[in-house]
């Protein structure tokens, strides 16, 4: 197998990591909430896609028109109802992080428990776009390539909004210095709520895409939250482009490791990479100090 094929496979996998991480970064980098229940919305969207597909034959991509707005709204409500009181109370950023970690940790168990009760703990799997697709003469699964393409689309759209609009400039200001942003007249709480909700919408898209090629059950959420956390910290908190690059880097590192060293060591390589970044560049590859 040529190295380019291995790397290409890694890029495709990494695109998914990036997509999951960008949503998490919107919540963590912009709204300053470490949302440990983030992956539960990915799981919820995966189940939504599964039921829509198996019961009503609704194409998962079309189904996003339902699950993305619902998750967006649910996350907005969570921010307004659960997070805002903590935001008001918190005196420092560290205090806010600590308290939101505890609150969302609780939320994680509520959501996972509800899903287990409603859907049972079974593993689910359905076949959508498993067909082979040729890229440069190499064969990849169409659903994985689709996930990568969607990651690029969403990543690109968010980059455009952040860098080419006034609204995006306000969001960036929020990420860099919330107090300064408030001083220049930016509605910090309203914008934070929107960023948090947008992260929720994005993770629903990621969940739908994941469900087309991975089997899932109500307990998968936390794995994705952890992966997102690693990618976001590696890429730099608040830096969306950083998440994209770090995600792809992680995917490529895993693929290279699984082919040239041993598949059993992919997790170790991912965390080794994470550790190196933390030691050498604690603010992340593209983070602002």
């Amino acid at each position, binding site marked *: *197998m040529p190295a380019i*094929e*291995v790397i290409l*496979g890694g890029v495709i*996998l990494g695109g*998914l990591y990036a997509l999951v991480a960008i949503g998490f970064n919107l919540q963590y980098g912009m709204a300053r909430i470490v949302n440990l229940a983030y992956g539960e919305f990915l799981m919820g969207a995966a189940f939504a896609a599964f039921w829509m597909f198996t019961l009503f034959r609704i194409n998962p991509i079309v189904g996003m028109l339902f699950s993305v707005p619902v998750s967006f709204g649910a996350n907005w409500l969570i921010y307004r109802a659960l997070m805002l009181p903590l935001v008001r109370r918190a005196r420092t950023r560290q205090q806010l992080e600590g308290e939101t970690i505890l609150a969302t940790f609780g939320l994680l168990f509520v959501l*996972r*428990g509800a899903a*287990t009760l409603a859907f*049972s*703990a*079974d*593993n689910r*799997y*359905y*076949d959508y776009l*498993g*067909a*082979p697709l040729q890229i440069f003469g190499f*064969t*990849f*699964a*169409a659903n*994985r390539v689709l996930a990568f393409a969607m990651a690029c689309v969403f990543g690109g759209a968010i980059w455009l909004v952040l860098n080419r609009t006034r609204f995006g400039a306000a969001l960036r200001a929020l990420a860099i210095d919330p107090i300064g942003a408030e001083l220049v007249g930016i509605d910090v709480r309203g914008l934070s709520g929107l960023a948090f909700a947008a992260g929720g919408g994005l993770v629903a898209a990621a969940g739908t895409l994941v469900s087309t*090629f*991975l*089997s899932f*059950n*109500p*307990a998968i959420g936390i*794995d994705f939250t952890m992966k997102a956390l690693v990618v976001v910290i590696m890429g730099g908190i608040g830096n969306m482009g950083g998440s994209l690059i770090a995600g792809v880097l992680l995917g490529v590192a*895993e*693929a290279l490791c*699984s*082919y040239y060293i*041993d*598949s*059993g060591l*992919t*997790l170790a390589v991912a965390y080794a990479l994470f550790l190196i970044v933390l030691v050498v560049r604690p603010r992340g590859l593209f983070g602002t100090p």
Partner: protein
Amino acid sequence: MQMQLRQTVSAAVLAAFGTIAGWTANAADAPKTIRIGYAISLSGVNAQGAATTTLPGYDLWVKDVNDAGGIFVKEFGKKIPIEVVAKYDDTSSAENMLRLEEKLMSQDKVDFVLPPWSTGFNLAAAPIFAKYGYPDLAVTANSMDEEQLVKQFPTLFFFLNQPPHFGGALIEVLNKYKNAGQLNNKIAMLSVGDQFGAEMSAGFGAGLKASGYDIVLQKSYPLGAADLTNEIKEAKASGADTFIAASYPPDTFMLTGTAITQGYNPKVFYTAVGTAFAEYGGNFKDKAQGVMGIGGWDPSLPGAQDYFKRQLAVTGHAPDGWASPVTYASLQILQQAIEKAGTLDRKKVLDTIVNGGPWDTVVGKVDLKTHIRETQWGAGQWQNGQFVGVSPSSMPGAQPVIFPKPAW
């Protein structure tokens, strides 16, 4: 001395009265229900396995028995229904499970306890079952030390064979085609990176090497891997006619899906846990034809088809082609043993389970004289929408193998 004697006499009199009172109470009023309890993983990492293999069998059995009016217990001269008085969630934590088993036996004092899910949990629970004298029909467990364990814990029963049995069953199939010159001696083997994967690949590997096979690709991958495309591509490039994966359900599905996408069609495609799930056939449909896996069952046995339909209708879970029917069979044995013993006395029921067999079940006749179910399927294959037993070929009802596996 005088004092002591008087105490002894009064104690004896009291004891005698107590016994008589006990007898009359027994004869007069039978218990309203046979009280059953269990602790199992309703949440956490083991919940998925328990929900697939074990819980539907428990639910169906309770319903089946109660629809028939209960279990006839001769010492009370009537049928007594079952009541599940406790269904605890061990949250996939072994410590919780052990605490809950103790509670079931020492505080709830249920009549019978149904076992937890997984090898690890069952082996951990075996000493508690033995300490309180509860029959321990540990279906979802197997071990290299089964003979020794059942001596150590006299209440313990094993229903699944030791790991080499499964390797041996597959190798029997491979040898047949290798000796006929239809299969090369190269093997590509993947395994999930945990104890199960390591034990299974080591067990299979030793057997394969002894039979003259060459393992040209051997790799492990982490539990919960997000992508196994490279592994399948390597297996495809390895030139092996036989693909073996010591896999768990999520990777079993992913490996199959990836092999289909990559057009990887080895002559023998074998995956482990999850291959026998009804969902496997449901998802891959015609493409499942010819896929081999661990386990197997004989759907032509009396009661088997009926059991399959009832479990699907009652619990919404179609049974798998391996441990689900065995779970139900273990409960059929418990029920028949209570009837045959004519009592709810656990010691007598235990003796009856051992000596009263062979028992008629949905997986055929089961004898537990040695506390271990000796004859069983090792390897099965998807044939026309059902996962049927194909090996050992000495099993009654063994189906001829579809070879080579048709292209996806």
